[in-house]
């Protein structure tokens, strides 16, 4: 185990280390100094300007907290609201957690390497905050916990580190949004996330991104799932961004562990997305599924998927579909690596435009060409995610519906 000092030293050496993939970001152009914000009471949240509330809502964050089990909101570098409403579920700002709860050290930088690249290094050298969300053994979350990382300050680089733990036999649902002020132009977000799904636990993590046109986004996340555990990871991004690169990775380290990654990306002109999912199947009976749906309206989208079957009796499937609606580039890179006899791995990838015969079929049922097109697009984006609570499914549908204007 590394001491805090050793972690710092490693990170320091990696401050200029470029990432393995994705365009390099010059981090010197951003400010990282602390931006103070007042803590918001429940009433304070409700009193937020309507515009900001809507912006939060787009990312699945409801300031009324009506059907939420807890909330974490960070504005720029500062935690402005943090609470849990359900016993057995903890929501703690990570800086506070590192000071007050020694157990957090057991999870901090244990899955993601602090010296992986300049972004992980930056998050260690200059940590603003982040959340620790934990479901205690046997606790089942009734309503999802909501978390939001919000950027309002022009030119800020937000560095966060999140740790999510579903203890044995627990069930934890999290909806998390990253968003910016409607007026923000330029900024960067560096987010480290480490996920621990313990024996027979279930974790669903639904992330909705709403960035601004000039945002650079570099999430770094790694998860591990123990015996019989389930990790559902959903990602929705329907708004422009300058450059987003991430390759979340999960290790299935216990028998019969399951991971499913679903992503929906709608790329606007000028945006660059390099996103993927990587799942290591390390124990017999493990299952992995990656399903990606992306649409480009003039964006460059690289969609990666990598499944690694290390032992026999594993099953993994990757499905990557891309639609080119109004120009742009769609690059699907599905990879399968079987390292033992008896693995069962498959993938399908398809890139293309909307099929004419589908449009005509709908037109012959009375829809105009435009209506037919948007009906097909909506169908394309609608994912059946087994195991996702209906309420979160509704949030995803809402996010897609609200973003119709970008299509």
């Amino acid at each position: 185990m590394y001491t805090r000092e050793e972690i710092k030293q490693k990170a320091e050496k990696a401050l200029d280390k470029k990432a393995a993939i994705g365009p390099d970001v010059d981090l010197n152009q951003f400010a990282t100094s602390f931006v103070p914000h007042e803590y918001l009471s429940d009433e304070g949240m409700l009193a937020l300007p309507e515009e900001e509330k809507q912006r939060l809502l787009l990312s699945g964050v409801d300031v009324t907290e009506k059907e939420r089990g807890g909330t974490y909101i960070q504005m720029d570098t500062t935690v402005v609201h943090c609470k849990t409403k359900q016993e057995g579920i903890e929501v703690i700002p990570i800086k506070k957690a590192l000071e007050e709860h020694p157990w957090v050290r057991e999870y901090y930088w244990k899955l993601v390497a602090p010296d992986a690249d300049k972004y992980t290094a930056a998050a260690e050298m200059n940590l603003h905050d982040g959340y620790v969300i934990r479901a205690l053994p046997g606790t089942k979350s009734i309503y999802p916990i909501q978390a939001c990382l919000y950027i309002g300050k022009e030119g800020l680089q937000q560095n966060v580190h999140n740790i999510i733990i579903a203890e044995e036999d627990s069930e934890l649902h999290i909806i998390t949004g990253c968003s910016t002020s409607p007026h923000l132009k330029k900024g960067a977000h560096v987010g480290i996330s480490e996920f621990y799904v313990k024996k027979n636990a279930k974790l669903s993590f639904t992330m909705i991104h709403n960035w601004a046109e000039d945002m650079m986004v570099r999430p770094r996340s790694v998860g591990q799932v123990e015996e019989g555990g389930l990790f559902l990871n959903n990602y929705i991004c329907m708004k422009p961004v300058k450059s987003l690169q991430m390759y979340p990775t999960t290790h299935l380290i216990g028998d019969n562990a399951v991971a499913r990654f679903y992503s929906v990306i709608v790329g606007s002109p000028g945006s660059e997305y390099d996103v993927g999912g990587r799942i290591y199947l390390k124990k017999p009976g493990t299952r992995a599924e990656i399903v990606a749906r992306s649409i480009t309206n003039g964006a460059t989208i690289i969609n990666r998927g990598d499944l690694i079957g290390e032992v026999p009796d594993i099953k993994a499937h990757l499905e990557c579909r891309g639609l080119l609606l109004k120009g742009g580039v769609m690059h699907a890179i599905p990879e399968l690596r079987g390292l033992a006899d008896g693995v069962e791995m498959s993938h399908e990838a398809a890139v293309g435009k909307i099929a004419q015969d589908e449009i005509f079929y709908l037109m012959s049922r009375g829809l105009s060409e435009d209506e037919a097109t948007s009906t097909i697009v909506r169908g394309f984006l609608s994912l059946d995610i087994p195991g996702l609570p209906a309420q979160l499914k509704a949030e995803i549908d809402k996010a897609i519906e609200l973003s119709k204007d970008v299509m």
Partner: protein
Amino acid sequence: MLLIEDLQVELAEKTILKHIDLEIKPGETHALFGPNGSGKTSLLMTIMGYPQYKVTGGKIVFKGVDVTHSPINERAELGIGMSYQRPPTINGLKTRQMVEICSKDKKVNVEALAEAVNFNSFLERDINAGFSGGEIKRSELLQLMAQRADLMLFDEPESGVDMENMVLVGETIAELLQKECRSTPTKSMAQVRRERTKMGLIITHTGYILDYVPVDKAQLLYNGVLSCSSNPREILNCIGEMGYEECVRCTLEKR
């Protein structure tokens, strides 16, 4: 009324329909026979308005409106509907949503309609995804029921349908085309018959469908040319005995 005059159609730069004349009056249903590749599907697709079927001559008039060059959805709105032989799958679009699309502003009870063609268990499935031949037919009929078109085009409604479902498919089509009419306390059978408005054009190879749906006329398409016989049974027997080519000859002579 559907009126087709001297219609000439090209597909992929090849003439596939030549000098087609066809008239279907309100209340009438015609059967359309013809060997594989003779252009039957092409004729239906042209009436529906698929742009790859390029009309190079003649015209199509429906309810007095010249629709020769109208887009598909305008024809659908005028009341033309189609039951496809191999409709495309639309991923993520549930059968229920498709039925709702068909019904448009009309209030329909999707469950009740689906019940009629034994299709309730398919409503939450993506439309046509993995449907068997018979399931496709029932799905298409369900959509037509919701759509309530006035002219219905059926492309081989009995192909891939098992014996048991044949009755269901046959009776549903008869119902759609107002052939299952019964007298009512206020109207005589003849009156009900006279008041039929629905029109149909049914492509059939086997003619099984005729056991359930009485048709008024039979059309025979051969090499893109249409010939007509007033007696569907006769023409079917003739095809069975002598083959299409001989049959075309005799029907052409009869004219």
